[in-house]
């Protein structure tokens, strides 16, 4: 995969439009997802996704580090979002609880009754609410891990932090999340 990616990157840097489209096809959805989860604004997430790829395409010929494209790409995306947030002097909220969650696509509901599906959606809403209660640093790692589908090693590189720190924080975040969910369920019971 890495060699194939390097070849695609080289071709795109040389002006090959098919290679560039292939890169966008592979990564734009994940970039969008990460941005959307952090800013809770679909339009803004699309704008920043575009801006991210503009930055990437203008720097592609300078990109030399093989095998580190994903951390580089996602770092650009997050920095671009952060700059935009600063510029607009808005605080980045994490999840738009009122928005219709598009997150079930790709997961089959064929075997589920409508009640099961409803319950699952509620459970997922609850999870997203719970994530919002975590510290920003924990939220970021969860989004990078579960929305952008980065490995912990890639997350560590994107955030410029030791792998162990990221792993520990990721696990701690999951543990906290579980506790919040349990508390919510106890309150409801």
């Amino acid at each position, binding site marked *: 995969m890495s060699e194939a990616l390097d070849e695609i990157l080289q071709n*795109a840097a040389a*002006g*090959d*439009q098919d290679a*560039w*489209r292939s890169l*966008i096809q592979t990564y*734009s*959805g994940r970039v*969008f*997802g990460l941005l*959307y*989860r952090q800013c809770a604004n*679909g339009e803004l997430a*699309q704008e920043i*996704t*575009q801006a991210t*790829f*503009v930055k990437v*395409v*203008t*720097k*592609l010929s*300078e990109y030399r580090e093989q095998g580190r494209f994903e951390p580089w790409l996602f770092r650009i995306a997050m920095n671009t979002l952060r700059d935009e947030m600063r510029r607009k002097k808005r605080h980045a909220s994490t999840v738009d609880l009122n928005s219709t*969650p*598009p*997150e*079930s*696509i*790709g*997961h089959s509901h064929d075997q589920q009754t409508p009640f099961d599906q409803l319950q699952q959606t509620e*459970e*997922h*809403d609850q*999870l*997203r609410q719970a*994530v919002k209660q975590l510290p920003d640093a924990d939220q970021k790692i*969860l*989004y990078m891990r*579960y*929305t952008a*589908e*980065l*490995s912990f*090693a*890639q997350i560590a590189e994107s955030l410029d932090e*030791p*792998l*162990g*720190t990221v*792993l*520990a*924080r*990721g*696990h*701690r975040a*999951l*543990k906290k*999340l*579980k506790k919040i969910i349990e508390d919510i369920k106890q309150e409801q019971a």
Partner: protein
Amino acid sequence: MNAQASNNSLPPELARLDQQLAEALRLNVNPHTSARIARQLFNATVEHLVATPFEDSELVSLDASLHSALAVSPPVDLVDAVHNATAHVLASNATNEVDDSEFETSVRIALHAVPPADLTDRVFSATSYYLTFDPPVIARVTPAWTASWRAAIAAAVFLAATLSLIWLNPTFEITSNPETTPSVAELKQNLDTLLAPPSPVQAIDAEIQAVAASVDEFAIAVDVDPMADPYYDPMIHDLEEDLSLLEAQIDSF
């Protein structure tokens, strides 16, 4: 302690940290120091596990050593984190694996976000244009383009302000040398001179300041220090040309 007992199986760097940690714990030094060393040991261990081809028995030994060391005087919250994270690394080698635990699967689904169907096309349309240009050129095209309207507004405001000035005080003169294009600093100095009290032009002070702000703004937009190199940015140059035209008009009065 167990950590020392298993030291022989540790790589040198880990053994050194392990020893340091054991010593810190034995001497009962500041808990923060112990925690810092423990964290270093943990990070080094994880790095080692990820980077090194290893045997299962070696992993078990490392894991046991680490936990033994930490268990003597556990830094707050670290033992659990170490246990979970190390167990995770042992299981996955920190690759892009999918953890099948039910809870993680729920989190994965809950945090998944489906992009708009036309996202690829949109991004491609917005970016493919740049494939045919050299990066340094592109880097300047975008800010210069976005700054052009600001320059036009700035020039118009400046023209209006100066004409108002002439109307209010027809005896003034521009002090810069018309033979040379003035620098941004000179322009600002001229404006300051014209605006000095008790001139009646104080009323348009805000407008003049807006012009100066615009100059600063588009200079920042193109990442250029106007004081260092005022001719680097074509927009500044355009503004100066507008000023020259303005001066010519003033001379003709």
